[in-house]
């Protein structure tokens, strides 16, 4: 006997083709859980969004849990061995693993502690002599194979909705190749460099519709580098606008997407002082 909801799923079609309702699960490692919270936002379309998939595991929101899921969304970075184990189990259970947000994609703000190259000092600074275990913060892809990344700190709900819809319909997911500057110009914003504010818009991957610059906050690069990023030109702009390289470094360093560039710049600035 089939229940009413099952009947409804079978009837759902798109362009005449039956649309499945894949079982999905949400997990979090070291993170603020904000990206998962974003999934509850856009309240007007929330129920439709939740109807796209069958949520079988979402600890932050529901008591029921199951290990039978097709798609796993994982927020957060890896900073402990038990998280590595949990992540490997998730990989074994899921057909598709999606890294949700900057912590999962690049380490996010959590990787800011890595720059000291001294975990003992980091632990002592916060906990004193109390022994507590921690590793350098790493993205998911350092531990398991990741099938898809959704960038941003936080992720943008509209983008998640688009990507999830594509996944359900079996359509490919493409990220923009151009930088945020393109989106910012299209929105006719005042250039933040002209206001004396550092901005990574010229080099950061687009897709957020210039979320921060449209609110007059320079981009901090949470989505990582655009494939077409011209780092040398960014540095020229910063120097020309008489903005300190330290402020450029703060932004390159913040989320881990520009880890290599940040490392080189930090060495250069520390060598200078």
């Amino acid at each position: 006997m089939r229940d009413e909801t099952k009947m409804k799923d079978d009837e759902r079609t798109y362009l005449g083709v039956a649309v499945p309702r894949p079982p999905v699960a949400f997990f979090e490692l070291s993170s603020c859980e904000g990206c998962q919270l974003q999934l509850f936002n856009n309240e007007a379309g929330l129920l439709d969004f939740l109807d796209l998939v069958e949520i079988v595991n979402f600890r932050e929101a529901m008591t029921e849990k199951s290990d039978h899921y097709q798609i796993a969304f994982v927020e957060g970075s890896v900073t402990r061995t038990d998280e590595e184990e949990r992540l490997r189990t998730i990989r074994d259970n899921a057909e598709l693993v999606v890294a949700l947000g900057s912590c999962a994609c690049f380490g996010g703000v959590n990787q800011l502690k890595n720059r000291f190259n001294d975990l003992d000092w980091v632990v002592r600074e916060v906990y004193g002599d109390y022994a507590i275990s921690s590793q350098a913060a790493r993205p998911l892809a350092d531990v398991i194979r990741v099938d898809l990344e959704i960038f941003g700190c936080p992720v943008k709900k509209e983008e998640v909705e688009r990507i999830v819809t594509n996944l359900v319909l079996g359509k490919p997911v493409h990220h923009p190749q151009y930088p945020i500057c393109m989106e910012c110009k299209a929105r006719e914003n005042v250039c933040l460099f002209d206001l004396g504010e550092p901005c990574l818009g010229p080099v950061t991957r687009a897709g957020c519709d210039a979320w921060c610059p449209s609110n007059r906050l320079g981009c901090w690069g949470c989505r990582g580098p655009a494939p077409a990023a011209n780092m040398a030109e960014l540095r020229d702009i910063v120097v020309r606008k008489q903005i300190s390289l330290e402020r450029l470094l703060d932004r390159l360093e913040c989320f881990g997407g520009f880890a290599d560039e940040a490392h080189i710049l930090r060495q250069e600035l520390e060598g200078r002082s």
Partner: protein
Amino acid sequence: MKISCQVDVRHLTRVEGHGNIKISIVDGLVKEASWEVVETPRFFEAMLVGKLYENAPYICGRICGICSIGHTLASIRTIENAFGFRPSGQTDRLRLLLKHMETLQSHILHIYFLAAPDYLGVGSVLPLTKSHPEVVQQALRLKQLANDLCDEVGGRRLHPTRTVVGGFTMLPDRHTLGRMRQRLQASLADLAAGAALFAGFTIPDFQRETEFVSLHQEGAYPFIGGDLRSSDGVCKKEHEYLAMTNEYMADYSTSKLSRLSRQSFAVGALARVNNNFHSLHPAARAVAEELGLTPLSHNPYMNNVAQLVECVHVVQESISLIDELLAVPWQEARQVVEPRAGIGVGAVEVPRGILYHCLEFDGQGRICKADCVIPTSQNHANIHHDIKALAGECAARGTADQEIELLAEMLVRAYDPCISCSVH
């Protein structure tokens, strides 16, 4: 009554972050009862060292995905206090309005999505979309209103973009604020329906005498800055926060824990309502009295009622704030702030209780030392002792196993713990 019971809840659901409940009752005696915090630390205090001051609000907001606005505002207040800067009246009002909408958003999320399923006998909000569609619609309308207003004032509901040291990067649209005022007015009906819904719930009858800690402001229900007060009579200034928090470590928690006059204390909506009942908006006070919440309430489950009471308070006060803002033309969004060497402390009441940030700066405005004391870390020890007392009562009464587990889960959820935030 002779009973035996084993409760072992690993990674409790419908709370933010990771915690375990363990209760072991053997032949009517409680052998073990604990609330364990197993969240991974992220070391925010270390991350900040050496960074320029402007990084702090941006990075600290990311301590928490639910109360990012509160963390951002606490960090900004800390920096402004350290640099001896006083924000404009306009900035103060906009920040309080933003703060209020975060409180509304967070409380509604907790009341309807995380706590209510227990009272309605389901595992999540999802079945409620079918069984109680009108309740879910009310919750979504309230949450959307709060989030839309956060977007308008703070630039973004989560990890705000416009909030900076000195003020805001840009100001809200005045026409939109006017429309928001109408929506706030209309939301009072949804909150009244929420109160009616709560009136039908059976709140577990459990009392444990507790010390409550909150901010205190003369003549106002406190949210940003003020004196530090406890219901046991302790009173300190904002910069003396360490005398209130007394952090220590214990082997059952990766979060630091706190104590004051007793072995533990509570912060949050119930603590605020208990300590500042007479400063509540009259409409909010009326809801409290209607739902049987009068000071001092020592029933932690009443925190959910206190959250609803605060929703009414913040909506009423936000309407007045918008009236005050729209009564005069906009002034400059942002003032210039000059860094200087020194230490600053900022105390802010975030949805789950009093939050402290403390930063020490060198002369260039670089951070030498950082400290954040999170509301949930202050609550952990109290939750732990509540669980022990609850287990004792259940053992004495011979409560059924499943009911003990549910009561323990509901007890932890009542605090609305933000565990990843507490460990940060």
